[in-house]
């Protein structure tokens, strides 16, 4: 068994650190406060070919695996860019995988090179007001009309929608009630978002405010049939395929935030003197940070196992789910302990801990909640009866 990181992986870390060094905490705090998309950061990554890191070379990408993509996102988060930085590029990294795998060769050739170069931004629309965790309950409908489909319905939480030319959209082509089983009758489309039939409204939210998430209403959006990905009715299966890599990337982003929290907090605990001694000399402050560090370390090993399995075409659902669960948990614990360590200053914007804390909280909920991971492990790994 080999644990050493390869020279390439080390070089990816350093390459990302080099770029992120020019985008400091003040940059991210300003983007967050003003709700401005981090264009300068995005363009720096795009110009130097990072956005397409995991897109195959035949489409102009870097041809790397989930392992390399996850290292990249971990380093972005760990620079202090946190989720504002990761979410700016996240979907371009691996979100178009269903188009590559199941889309027509023409569509892939048209779309993927523009995603790889960073020119084409894409969103992902699955969640609906009345269907979050239970995806099969979505109601947005696509109805065939000649060479087109007509799409009507409403999504929530579609991230980055105002910046995105296109959205990978899961809809029902057969209503739930009429489908042979709940997971059938769902179809995946690549739709144009900037259309008069689409109405986008940002949702005010706790954090990660540089990247908006939106309510998106589709009111008779006409989509050419060539934008259907794969077979009609097979959309659920295509989406499932992307869940494991998504979990691995999210886990890595959480890990990055956790790392920056522990680093800042241990530095602060060493410098800050109260009762004539550094607060880190009190074990009540030091031990939780050591604990957070170890929890992150454990999560990082599961992330590496999961990404290695995925890249080697081995089953990885258990590892990917475990990675996402442990990393989200460790990251929020680290952020919370960093806040406690900083005392009142942890609550002040000046130290950026409150920003990390707000962003670290997200991964326990989205893209999949901790409870759903526990459901997966209980039922699918341990074989206990499914609870829902």
């Amino acid at each position: 068994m080999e644990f050493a990181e390869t020279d390439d992986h080390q070089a990816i870390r350093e390459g990302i650190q080099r770029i992120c060094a020019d985008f400091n905490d003040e940059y991210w705090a300003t983007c967050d406060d003003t709700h401005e998309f981090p264009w300068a950061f995005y363009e720096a990554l795009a110009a130097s070919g990072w956005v397409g890191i995991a897109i195959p070379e035949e489409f102009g990408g870097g041809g790397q695996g989930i392992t390399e993509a996850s290292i990249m996102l971990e380093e972005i988060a760990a620079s202090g860019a946190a989720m504002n930085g990761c979410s700016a590029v996240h979907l371009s990294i691996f979100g178009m995988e269903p188009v590559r795998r199941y889309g027509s060769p023409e569509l892939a050739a048209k779309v993927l090179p523009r995603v790889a170069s960073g020119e084409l931004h894409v969103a992902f629309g699955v969640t609906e007001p009345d269907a979050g965790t239970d995806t099969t309950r979505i109601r947005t409908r696509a109805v065939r009309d000649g060479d087109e489909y007509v799409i009507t319905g409403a999504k929530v939480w579609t991230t980055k929608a105002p910046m995105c030319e296109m959205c990978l959209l899961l809809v029902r082509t057969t209503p739930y009630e009429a489908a042979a089983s709940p997971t059938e009758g769902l179809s995946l489309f690549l739709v144009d978002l900037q259309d008069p039939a689409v109405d986008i409204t940002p949702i005010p939210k706790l954090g990660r405010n540089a990247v908006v998430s939106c309510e998106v209403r589709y009111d008779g959006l006409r989509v050419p049939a060539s934008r259907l990905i794969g077979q009609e009715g097979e959309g659920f299966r295509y989406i499932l395929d992307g869940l494991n890599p998504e979990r691995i990337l999210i886990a890595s982003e959480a890990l990055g935030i956790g790392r920056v929290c522990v680093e800042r907090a241990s530095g602060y605990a060493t410098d800050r003197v109260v009762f004539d001694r550094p607060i880190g000399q009190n074990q009540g402050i030091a031990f939780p940070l050591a604990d957070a560090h170890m929890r992150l370390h454990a999560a990082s090993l599961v992330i590496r196992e999961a990404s290695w399995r995925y890249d080697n075409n081995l089953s990885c659902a258990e590892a990917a789910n475990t990675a996402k669960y442990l990393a989200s948990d460790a990251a929020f614990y680290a952020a919370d302990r960093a806040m406690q360590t900083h005392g009142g200053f942890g609550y002040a914007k000046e130290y950026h801990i409150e920003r990390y804390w707000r962003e670290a909280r997200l991964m326990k909920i989205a893209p999949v909640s901790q409870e759903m991971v526990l459901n997966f492990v209980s039922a699918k790994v341990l074989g206990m009866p499914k609870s829902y």
Partner: protein
Amino acid sequence: MKVVVCVKQIPDPADPGEIDPSTKTLKRDVKLILDESDSYGVEMALQLVDGDGEVVLVSMAPNNEVLAMGADSAILVSDEALAGSDALGTAKVLAAAIKRAEPDLVLAATESSDGYTGTVPEQVAELLGMPSVTFAKEVAVADGTVAVKRQTEAGYDDVTCPLPCLVSVTAGVVEPRYPSFKGIMAAKSKPVDEVGIADLGIDAGAVGWAGGGQEIVAIEPAPAREAGEIVEDEGDAYERIVSFLEELKVI
């Protein structure tokens, strides 16, 4: 066209480490990074060549970042005898290494961000018997001649000079590119010509501590900055600032 860029690896200015009291020089056992002031020369070289020619980096420490930015190859001089080299010793080594590449143009930074002697490029030019142009803020090459906008206190001079020559480049004049993902992956397979001083025909006694023509007598911490005078604006602040600057004879 073949352009050589001289680059240096320095301790990160954000975390520069310590001065070694026995040698009175900066300890170099910390992580070294590409001197930012060299990145402008690298960018200029890459823009000048623009895929039609060759950029060769010459350095006394391994430097993958410049290869990742797009340089084609490297000459790396590494030799234990080089430790402690002063500006002239460094110039001798660089000149001998540059000679191997037979460049049309040599670019260097005006000065490094750790040593700040600002003398190495001109010494290299002299040793190579090349003309040199200093403080370039723009460089263009045409018909065997380099045209340089040379920064002056008042503005700039237009200077032309026949190739081959050496041009030292002022900091901040171009926007250095980030090493690209593909560049980083390609860097490791680019040719690096690793040479010792014997390969360059240099005698160990001429460089390093042994060949030092310069002696560091003492090192002192920089004096702490004195508190400035705060001018509260009561409508006449600009007058007071102007008269203050006049007193300093800066305006």
